[in-house]
C-alpha cells in the first residue's frame, strides 16, 4: 500500500473501518448465533447472547427438510452450467481473439450487452419453451437456461485475457503445424488456467445464488435448488426463527468457505467487469 499520510487519518480511518466491519459482519453474526439457539431461548431475548448453544436446528434442517437434496441439486445445476458455458465461451473467445470472421465485433459487442440483460425479461418466453418441451420441474431446464446466461460474461472475460497472450506463441505453434484446436489446447489453455478458474468461480457463485429462475422452473419440492427451497421456508417457519436461520446458514456457509479459499479469483473476476 502506498502511504499518502499517516497520523490523524490513520486513527479516524481505523474508527470508520471498525464501524463498517461491525455493520458488515453484525447481521451475519446474528444469523449464526440465532441458528445455534433454542426457539424458547431466542424468544426470550432475540438480540441477547445465546443461553445454551445447540446443534438441534442444524440437525432438524438437515433431516426434517430436504436441504441436502436441494444442495445437491444446486451443486449439479451450478457445476454443469459452469462447465458447459465455460467450454462454449472458450471456443468463441479463442476465435474472436485470434480468428478472422464476419461479425467478430458484433459477437463481442453483443456479448458485452447481454451480460447486463435482466433475466426476468427472458423468463416468460423461456418458461413457455420449457413447458412445451416438458422440462418444467426438471433440473435440465434451469441448467440449460443458466448455461446460456453465463456465456456472455465468460466470452468477455476470456477475450480480455486472451488478448494478453503474445501472438508469437501462436505463430510458433502454427509453424509447427498445429491447427486451431491444437493451438487452443496446447498453447492457449495452459496459459489460461488462472483466467478459467476465475470465470468458473464467479459463475459458479452466481449459479449457486440464483433464485428467480429456479423458483419459477422448479416447483416440485424435491426438484428445487437450495435457494428456491429456502424461499419456501420463509412462509412456513415464521415462528421458528432459529430453524429458519440454520437452513439459511447452510446456504451461506459453503459460499463463505469457498470465498476463503479463492479470494483472489473472486476479486479479479468481479473487478473485470468494471475498470481495466
Amino acid at each position, binding site marked *: 500500500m502506498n502511504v499518502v499520510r499517516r497520523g490523524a487519518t*490513520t486513527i479516524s480511518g481505523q474508527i470508520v473501518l471498525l464501524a463498517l466491519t461491525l455493520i458488515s459482519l453484525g447481521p451475519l453474526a446474528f444469523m449464526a448465533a440465532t441458528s445455534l439457539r433454542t426457539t424458547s431461548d431466542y424468544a426470550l431475548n432475540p438480540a441477547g447472547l445465546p443461553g445454551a448453544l445447540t446443534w438441534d436446528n442444524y440437525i432438524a434442517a438437515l433431516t426434517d427438510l430436504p436441504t441436502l437434496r436441494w444442495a445437491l441439486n444446486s451443486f449439479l445445476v451450478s457445476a454443469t452450467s459452469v462447465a458447459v458455458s465455460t467450454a462454449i465461451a472458450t471456443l*468463441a473467445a479463442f476465435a474472436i481473439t*485470434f480468428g478472422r470472421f464476419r461479425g467478430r465485433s458484433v459477437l463481442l459487442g453483443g456479448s458485452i450487452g447481454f451480460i447486463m440483460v435482466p433475466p426476468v*425479461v427472458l423468463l416468460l418466453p423461456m418458461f413457455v419453451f420449457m413447458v412445451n418441451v416438458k422440462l418444467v420441474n426438471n433440473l435440465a431446464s434451469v441448467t440449460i437456461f443458466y448455461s446460456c446466461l453465463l*456465456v456472455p460474461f465468460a466470452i468477455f472475460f476470456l477475450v480480455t485475457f486472451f488478448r494478453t497472450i503474445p501472438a508469437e506463441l501462436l505463430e510458433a505453434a502454427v509453424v509447427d503445424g*498445429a491447427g486451431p484446436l491444437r493451438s487452443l489446447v496446447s498453447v492457449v489453455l495452459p496459459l489460461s488456467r488462472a483466467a478459467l478458474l476465475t470465470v468458473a468461480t464467479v459463475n459458479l457463485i452466481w449459479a449457486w445464488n440464483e433464485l428467480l429462475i429456479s423458483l419459477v422452473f422448479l416447483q416440485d419440492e424435491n426438484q428445487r435448488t437450495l435457494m428456491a427451497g429456502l424461499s419456501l421456508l420463509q412462509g412456513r417457519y415464521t415462528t421458528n426463527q432459529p430453524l429458519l436461520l440454520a437452513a439459511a446458514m447452510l446456504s451461506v456457509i459453503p459460499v463463505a468457505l469457498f470465498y476463503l479459499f479463492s479470494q483472489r479469483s473472486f476479486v479479479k473476476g468481479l473487478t473485470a467487469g468494471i475498470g481495466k
Partner: protein
Amino acid sequence: MTLVATAAHATPGGSPATPRPRRPRPLWPYLFIAPACAALVFGFIYPLISVVRNSFYAGTVYELNFVGIGNFKTLFEDPIFRTSIANNLRLLLTVPVMTVLALAVAAILHSGVRGGVFYRAAVFLPYILPAAGIGLGFSVFLQFNGGLNQSLRAVGMGGLAYDWLGSPNLAIWSVGAVVVWQQLGFGVVVFLAALLSLPVEVTEAARMDGASWWRIQTRVHLPQIRGTIEFFVVLQAITVLSLVFTYVYILTTGGPSNSSSVMEFYIWRSGFAQGSVGLANAAAVVLLALAGVLIAIYMRLRLRDDDPALR
C-alpha cells in the same frame, strides 16, 4: 484493429498451399463460435424477440389474442405497477450512497491502514453470499421484535425501533438498505483496485507541493479513477433497476399490500402467481426499455475503454 488483423494472419487454419497475400477467410472460426451463437440466440435473442411480440397479446400461455397496446394501457393504469416503478426509482437513490461510501472506504484503505487486508475481506464478504440466505437472516433481524430493534431498545434507543419490513412507508427503504449492505464491498474492492493501479509519481508530486490528504483524494485521485466510478454507477443502477427480485421476494414478498413491489416482482407476480401473461410481458418490455438505456451507456463505457485494447 490492425494488430488483431495481423494476429489473425498468424493464426492456424486455412490451407498451407495459399501463398497469396489475400487468403480466403478460414472456416474454423465459424465452427468455434457456433455453440456460443446457438446459446446466445436461444438464451437471449429468441426470448427478447418473443417477449416484445407477446407484449401485444393477452390471454393465457396457450391462447393469445392480439390486443395492440392494450396491455401497456392497463399496465400504466395499474397502481401496483406505478408503485413498482416508483420503488425502482427510489432504489436508484441507493446508488450515490453506495458510491460515496465505497469511495471513502477505498480511499482510507488505500492510505495504508493497519489491518487493511482484513477490513477489505470483511466488507467484501457480504457481496458474494446468496441474497436468499442473507435475506432470510435480515427478515428475522429486522422483525419488529427482531435482533435490530431489541438491540436498539436495550441501549435506550427504542424510539428508533420501527417496523422495518412491516410498514408500507419503510419496507422499500429497508430493502434498499440490505442492497447497500450487500453491494458496498463490491464498490470498495473495485475502487481500491483502481486506486492501487494509479501511478505513484503524480501523488508524490502533489505531496511535495504540500497538498493535504483530502486534497490529494479529491483533486488527484478522483479525476484519475473517474472511468471506474462511471462504470460502477451504471452497473449499480442496472442492478437496483433489474436485479433485486431476490431481496424483495425474501424480505417482504412485495408487501405490506404491494407497497414494496418492484418491476421484477410485478412481472413475476402477474406472470406466474396470477396468470396475467399479457401484463407480465408488457411490464417486461417496459423494464427492458429502461434497462436498455443503461445497458447502452454501459456498452459505450465498455467499448470506449476497450478501444485502446483492441488497437
